[in-house]
């Protein structure tokens, strides 16, 4: 119950950058009902907007629960960018460290990289590279995931390796850029100062490399470089777009696997790129069966920026696996185009078995295509 004296007399909405985002809301409740978290918790974006407009400050719980998956922004009749509102609010307060999974190690690694003035991440993959090439490739923090997620069945290094194989297979020797982490998590957990630091360094390296296209494997990198970085004249390409573009140069083994595709929020709803991955999968000859909720209605994989991996997020992950199993059965493949979704879904697959019985495989797009494509034609 909001006591009358708590309502601030004059709420300066329009001038306040954060509140102005949600100013147009007419409390219709569509965002709350479409939010994937609402199916598994009492989370109420509309309520949050309502109390914010009344001047109440948001607690740690409200801010860290939101998956920023932008399903509400996609459907909102008043086009209110709730995720952007959450991000702005997060930058106002210091998030409580306990909410970060894996003991906040990945946030620490980002801070570490930001502080190191002169070097980005060192990668070593087999395959030819050419430092003068106009096409650069950046795999993302794959090697760091290997060290700290210690999943038994998954090697994140393979994401980069498969991408390199594919790039070489289509006859290109990419320039393997040594960038720092793209800073997506720092940006989305509200640490804008840290993000700016990383962005400045990365932009400088990318410009100095004199490249025309920057190819990335992870949907989050693709969104960050495209939307948040100022890289005029440089085309940012996601691995799915790259393979789609070079379809003709790849040949595929005879393959009957049933496959279904999960649209990562950053690739789908944020960047409206639904078709590239689907074309690639169809082209491999596998039979692509859509999930019940796909394209713009695809449900988020459950966790974003390593925040709050709890019962609710696992319920969402299990629902995703359930959808996938209904689509392609236990022996099918669920293909994702984002390193993070790949990590989260495989992590829940390795949970103790009484939890669930799902046996289907979750594969990263690059790896799936690399496995199926044979020699370079």
């Amino acid at each position: 119950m909001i006591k009358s004296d708590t309502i601030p007399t004059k709420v300066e909405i329009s001038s306040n950058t954060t509140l102005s985002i949600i100013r147009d809301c007419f409390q219709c409740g569509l965002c709350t009902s479409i939010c994937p978290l609402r199916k598994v918790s009492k989370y109420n974006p509309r309520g949050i907007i309502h109390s914010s407009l009344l001047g109440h400050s948001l607690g740690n719980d409200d801010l860290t629960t939101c998956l920023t998956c932008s399903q509400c922004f996609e459907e909102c009749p008043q086009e209110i960018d709730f995720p952007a509102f959450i991000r702005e609010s997060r930058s106002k307060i210091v998030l409580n460290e306990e909410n970060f999974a894996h003991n906040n190690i990945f946030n620490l690694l980002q801070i570490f990289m930001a502080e190191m003035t002169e070097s980005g991440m060192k990668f070593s993959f087999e395959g030819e590279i050419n430092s003068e090439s106009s096409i650069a490739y950046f795999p993302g923090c794959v090697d760091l995931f290997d060290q700290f997620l210690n999943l038994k069945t998954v090697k994140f290094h393979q994401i980069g390796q498969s991408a390199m194989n594919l790039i070489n297979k289509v006859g290109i020797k990419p320039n393997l850029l040594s960038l720092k982490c793209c800073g997506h998590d720092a940006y989305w957990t509200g640490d804008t100062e840290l993000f700016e630091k990383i962005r400045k360094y990365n932009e400088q390296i990318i410009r100095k490399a004199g490249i025309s296209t920057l190819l990335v494997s992870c949907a989050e990198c693709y969104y960050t470089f495209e939307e948040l970085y100022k890289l005029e004249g440089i085309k940012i390409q996601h691995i799915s777009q790259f393979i789609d573009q070079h379809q003709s140069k790849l040949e595929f083994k005879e393959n009957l696997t049933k496959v279904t595709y999960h649209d990562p929020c950053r690739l789908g709803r944020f960047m409206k790129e639904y078709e590239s991955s689907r074309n690639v999968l169809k082209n491999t000859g596998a039979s692509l069966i859509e999930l019940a909720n796909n394209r713009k209605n695809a449900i988020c994989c459950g966790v974003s920026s390593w925040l709050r991996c709890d019962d609710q997020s696992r319920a969402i992950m299990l629902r995703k696996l359930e959808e996938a199993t209904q689509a392609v059965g236990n022996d099918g493949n669920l293909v994702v185009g984002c390193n993070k979704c790949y990590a989260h879904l495989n992590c829940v697959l390795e949970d103790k078995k009484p939890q669930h019985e799902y046996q289907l495989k979750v594969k990263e797009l690059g790896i799936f295509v690399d496995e199926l494509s044979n020699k370079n034609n």
Partner: protein
Amino acid sequence: MANNCLIIGGEIAALRATKDLIAYGISVTLVNPSNELGKISKMFQSGISDFAFKKNVLRSHLEGLESNINLNLMNNAQITKIIKNQYPFEVEITQNGTTQNHVADTIIIATGFEVFNAEKIEEYGYRYLEGVLTIFDLEMAFQQQKIPINEKTKRIIFVLCVGSRTLKDGGNPDCSTYCCSYSINQALRIKKEFPSIDVVLMYMDIRTVASHEYLYNEARKSGVLFIRGRVSSIERAEDNLITFYEDTLADSQDVLPADLVILAVGGVPLSDYDEIAMNFGVQLTPNRFVKITDKPVYTSTPGIFACGSACDGVKNVPQCLSEGGAAAMAAIQFLAEKTEK
């Protein structure tokens, strides 16, 4: 004596204007895009209480209209080209393939609105999920006595603001004015005929303007349930439909099963307003309805008038009638000025 008026449209507003003008002796050419007059207005007849919906309003307008000598009715006809967009206006009209030029001293735009195509909102699954209808489908069913309600129907949900008050899915950013009253009206009819059925209305704001408020009170008295929340998606369970929404007033369950879901589809501007506007030089509102100057029914081009749902936004029946009359009077006044000179 300049006494030739071109009226575009075939609904209640156009009919009203036509009736007034021909009664005044002005010869009217009525260009009706659809194949019959009052195709949409027909849907607005049945009302539980005639208080809001005057019964047989349409019939009284259509009576003896076509036979009137001053009326030149052209069904299935469109204005295909504007040759002269000032007084005396010259247009090219095509009807069933044959085109003819026509000179008119004044023009009244009364083309009405287009019903929002509910398929555009995938989440509602219209045409795809069995049991999801629009209010007009229901009205059709009422008129053809093929009401899809049987003893198994336990609950019917009306979903309001479908395609209205939204920037998405090609809907109409404004309110379509008629859907609230229309839906409540239908809900009342169902409740009267089948009292045992649980009728629920999912709304954001109930806008039963002026006398229509009676319908809202009547509905609540007869047990229609009103839930404030916009339905986000509808899914098919084995034997019924599941609607997902947030009840913004109560902290309750957000899932409600139903046997029938009726979408209160609003109106969107006709796509050809753009040509009319361009050719005639008539300005449009940001939401692409014909823009009215400070004087009602007057468009930005002298001699061209607009009424009904064509101008400014979708209207309900009483508004269309009054605007039809006003447009007729304005045309007569304009013609009178022209004839003096």
